[in-house]
């Protein structure tokens, strides 16, 4: 059973990593972001699988933290794309 869990973890990691490498080349930043998103979810899945097979305490909390912050990079990305052209007008006022 444990071997199966580890195998599944490795398989998921491999597929999402393959996606990562293809998409890191672009074409657009949004595609890169999606690849990171997929790796995040896949990473959480493999983390849970590995932890279940090797019994490490506290892994749920690690996965919880990762899940919580999964959207964070996307938020930053979407926010960063056009933030700066708005800032000059806002400087000075509050």
């Amino acid at each position, binding site marked *: *059973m444990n071997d*199966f*869990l580890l195998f*599944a973890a490795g*398989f*998921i990691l491999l*597929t*999402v990593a*393959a*996606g990562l490498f*293809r*998409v890191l080349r672009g074409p*657009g930043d*949004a*595609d890169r*972001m*999606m*690849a990171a*998103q*997929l790796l995040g*979810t*896949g990473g*959480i*899945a493999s983390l*849970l*699988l590995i932890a*279940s097979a090797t019994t490490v305490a506290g892994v*749920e*909390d690690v*996965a*919880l933290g990762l*899940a*919580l912050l*999964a*959207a*964070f990079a*996307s*938020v930053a*990305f*979407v926010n960063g*794309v*056009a933030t700066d052209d708005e800032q000059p007008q806002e400087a000075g006022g509050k």
Partner: protein
Amino acid sequence: MNFALDLFSIAAIAAGAFFFFAGSVGLLRFPDSLTRLHALSKADNLGLGLVVLGLLPRVGSLLDALKLLAIWALVLLSGAASAQLIGRALRRRGGDE
């Protein structure tokens, strides 16, 4: 009983892994960013959900089971939100061109 649960775990996790595979393939093969986004959000939500489902019989306590479900819920939530955000960004950029 134990055997049946193991079988259930194996089936769910295998299905989850398949969805991750499908998601990656979609990300690689689909023609444009919006359809790729579609493939991605379906795949990773379902993929992780099935893996979590498969792991549920193996957890030690109720709290841990709840945590697993919370992880899935969080990923669903943030996945939906970031898909929306990325989609908007894509459309805005499309309009610029």
